[in-house]
């Protein structure tokens, strides 16, 4: 196999984008999976996609649109779900359908070629720009830094949110902070992975790690490794077999999830629960 390709700038950028995207998406994934709020990730991903399309249509930086839309959707979903006026699934579903509608509306309004819009749809890790890469590296450093700094609060909120509130942890602030960084992470990875596919990179490595350990620290590490493997294996598949990169990354991460589930030591938990219920 010829590895001389590694000396080219575009491939080095793609490898770095895969490393950062794999880590950040997986870390954010651990949060949403552990909180059983996976659909929030889908919704924010579609909001980012809609915002990016608005940017393409109106001629401003798509990542700015993606960031504004993803943060706005997180800002709408959180309070709606918290106040209990609507079932969280209902409120997320409404925002999700609105964002999907806006995405198609913006795409429909675009004059001429829609190549850039389609790139945002599918993602292209091989054509990631230096500007996008810098943004992604900054976001990765911020996400890792915040997880290290606020690990104990994050653990309390994702595992016992009501308890966290009752013991005097600023649980609501931490919860909205997690939603905020979900939005920022999705925005930063949008060009590499694509608006329709990024959600799988958030969910699959985290869900796979969730099958393998009861330790949050280990789960964050395992999910990050799975995320990086997904990105790099997907990138290699994409390059050597000439397949779409976003799709390759997502399929790789799905295979990892399938393997983790098949060999999960937690499968016996189901049997244990049945014994408990029988008693």
């Amino acid at each position: 196999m010829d590895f001389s390709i590694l000396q080219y700038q575009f491939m080095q950028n793609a490898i770095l984008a895969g490393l950062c995207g794999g880590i950040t998406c997986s870390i954010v994934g651990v949060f949403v999976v552990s909180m059983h709020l996976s659909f929030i990730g889908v919704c924010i991903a579609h909001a980012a996609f809609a915002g990016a399309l608005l940017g393409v249509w109106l001629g401003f930086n798509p990542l700015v649109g993606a960031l504004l839309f993803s943060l706005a959707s997180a800002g709408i979903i959180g309070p709606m779900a918290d106040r209990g006026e609507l079932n969280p699934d209902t409120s997320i579903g409404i925002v999700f359908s609105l964002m999907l509608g806006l995405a198609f509306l913006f795409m429909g309004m675009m004059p001429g070629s829609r190549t850039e819009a389609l790139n945002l749809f599918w993602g292209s890790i091989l054509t990631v720009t230096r500007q996008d890469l810098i943004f992604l590296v900054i976001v990765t450093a911020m996400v890792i830094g915040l997880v290290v700094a606020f690990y104990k609060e994050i653990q309390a909120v994702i595992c016992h949110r009501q308890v966290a509130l009752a013991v005097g942890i600023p649980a609501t602030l931490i919860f909205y902070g997690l939603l905020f960084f979900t939005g920022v992470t999705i925005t930063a990875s949008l060009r590499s992975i694509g608006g329709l596919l990024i959600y799988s990179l958030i969910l699959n490595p985290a869900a796979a790690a969730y099958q393998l350990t009861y330790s949050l620290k280990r789960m964050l590490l395992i999910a990050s490794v799975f995320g990086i493997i997904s990105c790099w294996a997907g990138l290699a598949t994409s390059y050597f077999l000439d397949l779409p990169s976003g799709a390759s990354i997502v399929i790789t991460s799905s295979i990892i999830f399938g393997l983790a589930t098949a060999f999960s030591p937690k499968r016996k938990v189901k049997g244990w629960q049945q014994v408990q219920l029988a008693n």
Partner: protein
Amino acid sequence: MDNMVISIKDAVVSYREDVALQGVSLKVRKGEFIGIIGPNGAGKTTLLTVINGLGKLVQGQALVLGMPVNGRNGIKLRKRIGYVAQVESIDPRLPINVRETVMVGRYGRLGLLHRPTQTEWKNVDRVLDMVGMAGLAQRPIGHLSGGEYQRAAIARALIQQPEIFLLDEPTASIDPQAQREILSLIQLIHREYHMTTLFVTHDLRQLPSTCQRLILMKEGKIWQQGSPESMLKGEILSQLYGATVSIPAKAEVAF
């Protein structure tokens, strides 16, 4: 009065159109053990949430541990109040073990950007030993039985070193043996630490014998209050619950 730790005056709490508390006034002295009983929907849990600042007062005032309860100081207040709710349904795959769950109780007092020290982890181990959970310290929290989960919840409240201990139906949905053990533990804690304790239950058989005052709640109001001897009468309880109630044998109340 210096030793008054809770002073609530004319508290009104509503959830949209439902009024959960209607002009409740209550004073609690330091170290008192109070039982709060009443049918479902009487406002017992809402009263506890007023005390720890999670319930929003529409009218009235609450002074807890010398602080007026309002939206601004809720976090500060809750660091000083232990809260144990009834057993909740929990994901058996949740990535947190018993020891870590108990340490969560300390996180509020530790504050942001401070990590637990070795001494604090040793304190967690000591408290786990006290509640009889030392052998299950490394077990995932989702793998505990209802009684074990409540022991862990009590340990979590204790590690907080609270000045007020709120217990909201802590023995609901667990088996009778575990109920007796949890009640014994709660009484032991009160004897050892003399924490101001408010114990909510709708089940008279779950009322700890160390209860010094009994508050009877009905339709969002404090309907009657007094010593357990004066309140635990068939006629009063039948009116409270709207059905004939027989007084549990002393052995059952006191276990």
